[in-house]
């Protein structure tokens, strides 16, 4: 029924199956929308946040999706600026994932603020000394860049492309994409860094506070670095999940392996820098404020030293060593393990820099503050996931997201007959791989 919209040379599931899938995920989405409306109309009393936990699940989710969405800018940088042509086979998907991550981050921020209608005050009454102001500006601009990067892919839909204007627009946008890739990398450097700075500048919170260079705490650089390192792992992970669900090979191994290799070296260098930064903080910065390292990791039911071991050792060094070895990244199982660990690692880092910062007592007579999210917080955090799944499903079905798909999954001759009876299958000779 919708075969005219499906890219040439590829096969898709029947429409009813697709709609059933969208409907199932749509129910989860509606649940999240309901919770979101509750928060907007009744206020943030719908959450389990309190005056000790002013930052909670949402801010973590925000930081986490932005970190894993870093795959878009870093892959774009490698493809367009450093000329890694082999990544053209995965760049479309990296952009799509980045678009989903950043639109989700903006949505979460819109729910998280107490007066959503005043959200624009951050631009109008901007305090240039605040890291959050920098985040807001760069985040919004970069979302614009991602939209521009995603647009040519939409214009390559079979029916839209038939319109000469859209066809030429798409072509010309491809021509200048390097400019947007460079802009995206520049903006990402600042907003990823500023998100690290959000915690790092809190000199009233010894657990978060870090020294640094000029106005930038070390977390500024570590956040950018970790996003560039672990973002591509998330791109690989989502690609692998998509391949598993569709039961197709969608991206050539050489693209995955190159991205995995670069990511591995980035994770290794990041985690060494992170360890050094933490060592300095634990032995110099924190003691100068009257704290020992173990005071931050004891006398509470959750935050033990295990979290350091998990973040740095298990989710840092382990995936790094797997990915930098040829054997490790070529083996499907170890590749899966490595990308999952890397994604968990960066998310855990963001959790620590948001949730644990709020939990640690600062005044000597204060106490650890524990927090668990309300169902409204959980639902609104799952909402972007459902939205992402739906957008990926629609994009995958109707847009040439994977340029190698037709080549990697040749359609058998019997499929030709099926085209006559409304099957979403096209002849292979008509194939025209797309490239962002």
């Amino acid at each position, binding site marked *: 029924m919708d075969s005219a919209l499906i890219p040439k040379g590829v096969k898709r599931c029947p429409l009813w199956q697709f709609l059933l899938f969208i409907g199932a995920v749509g129910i989860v989405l509606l649940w999240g929308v309901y919770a979101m409306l509750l928060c907007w109309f009744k206020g*943030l009393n719908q959450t389990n946040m*309190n005056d000790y936990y002013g930052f909670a699940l949402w801010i973590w989710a925000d930081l986490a999706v932005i970190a894993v969405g870093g795959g878009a800018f870093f892959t774009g940088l490698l493809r367009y600026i450093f000329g890694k042509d082999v990544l053209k086979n995965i760049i479309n998907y990296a952009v799509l994932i980045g678009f989903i991550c950043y639109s989700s981050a903006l949505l979460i921020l819109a729910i998280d603020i107490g007066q959503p209608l005043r959200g624009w005050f951050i631009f109008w009454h*901007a305090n240039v000394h605040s890291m959050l102001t920098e985040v807001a500006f760069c985040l919004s601009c970069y979302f614009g860049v991602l939209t521009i990067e995603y647009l040519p892919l939409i214009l390559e839909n079979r029916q839209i492309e038939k319109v000469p204007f859209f066809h030429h627009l798409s072509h010309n946008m491809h021509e200048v994409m390097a400019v947007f890739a460079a802009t995206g990398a520049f903006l990402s450097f600042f907003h990823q860094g500023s998100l690290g700075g959000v915690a790092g500048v809190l000199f009233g919170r010894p657990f978060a506070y870090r020294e640094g260079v000029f106005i930038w705490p070390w977390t500024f650089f570590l956040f950018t670095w970790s996003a560039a390192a672990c973002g591509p792992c998330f791109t690989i992970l989502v690609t692998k999940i998509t391949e598993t669900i569709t039961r197709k090979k969608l991206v050539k191994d050489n693209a995955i392996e190159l991205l995995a290799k670069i990511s591995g070296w980035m994770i290794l260098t990041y985690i060494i820098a992170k360890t050094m930064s933490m060592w300095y903080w634990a032995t110099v910065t924190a003691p100068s404020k009257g704290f020992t390292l173990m005071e931050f990791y004891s006398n509470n039911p959750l935050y033990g030293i295990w979290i350091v071991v998990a973040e740095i050792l298990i989710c840092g060094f382990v995936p790094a060593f797997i990915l930098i070895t040829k054997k490790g990244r070529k083996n499907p199982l170890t590749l899966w393990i490595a990308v999952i660990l890397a994604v968990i690692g960066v998310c855990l880092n963001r959790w620590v820099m948001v949730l644990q910062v709020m939990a640690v007592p600062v005044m*000597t007579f204060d106490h650890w503050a524990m927090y668990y999210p309300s169902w409204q917080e959980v639902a609104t955090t799952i909402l972007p996931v459902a939205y992402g799944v739906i957008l990926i499903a629609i994009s995958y079905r109707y847009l040439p997201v994977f340029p190698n798909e037709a080549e990697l999954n040749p359609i058998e001759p019997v499929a030709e007959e099926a085209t006559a009876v409304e099957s979403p299958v096209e002849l292979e000779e008509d194939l025209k791989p797309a490239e962002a």
Partner: protein
Amino acid sequence: MKYNKNHRFGMVIDLDKCTGCGSCMVACMAENNVPFRKDESNKLLSITWMRVFRLTNGEPFPKTDICYLPRPCMQCAGQHEGHSPCVSVCPATATDYGIETGIVSQIYTRCFGCRYCMASCPYHSRYFNWWDPIWPTGMEKYLSPNVSPRMRGVVEKCSFCYHRYQLAKEKAFMEKRRELKESEYQTACAQACPANAITFGDLNNPDHAVHRMVNPDPKHGGRPKNPHAVRLLERLGTNPKVYYLSSRNWIRQAGDNHLKNEAKIKKPVHHG
């Protein structure tokens, strides 16, 4: 005597005098139209611009000792005047540092409720309006007309009763005076304290009691020269304008975090 023309309004709280009666908290709530709910038992959700903490030295009987510690907003100056933990992070300039007074203000109509300032404050002096303020029937007539009530979704905090400063300035202006007398600008909590434990005034003015009590060192961000005076979390560099006096060593030690080799006393315990 010459002194800095800019004021640095501050507070000195004598912890040896404080009985923990809570008059300061009540006076503050009434003066500043602080909203409340039917159930105020969850202190992580209730708004208390002035909050009294109860500390003990953690020693068993008969060495047990108790201290009540009232905690308003510390009106931090930061490492350089105006670089308060909260002011420096607010993305919408909804909280500002008054160079003329040293008071950290909160602009309720500009705050959009991101709560970054709350995350930055180590004293937990900032509170979020999780609910709309609902006053018991008839009580709205008793609200102070000088303080604007806050709406749901914004942050609020102690302002050192700034409206009183404005009223005193207006009165002085009408009387063709430029300076205020010490008694003309006093906070509600300082006036309500029956034990006279709270003293308020200009730390820059040597004639004011607060200056004489703590003898602030302007070369070190106002650090007290009086050995019996401390500021909370001095080591963080927040440079607060609220000072605590006590003759008891464990209480002064409780004001800041110390490494084991620096202090050989038990950490204080907070109750309730």
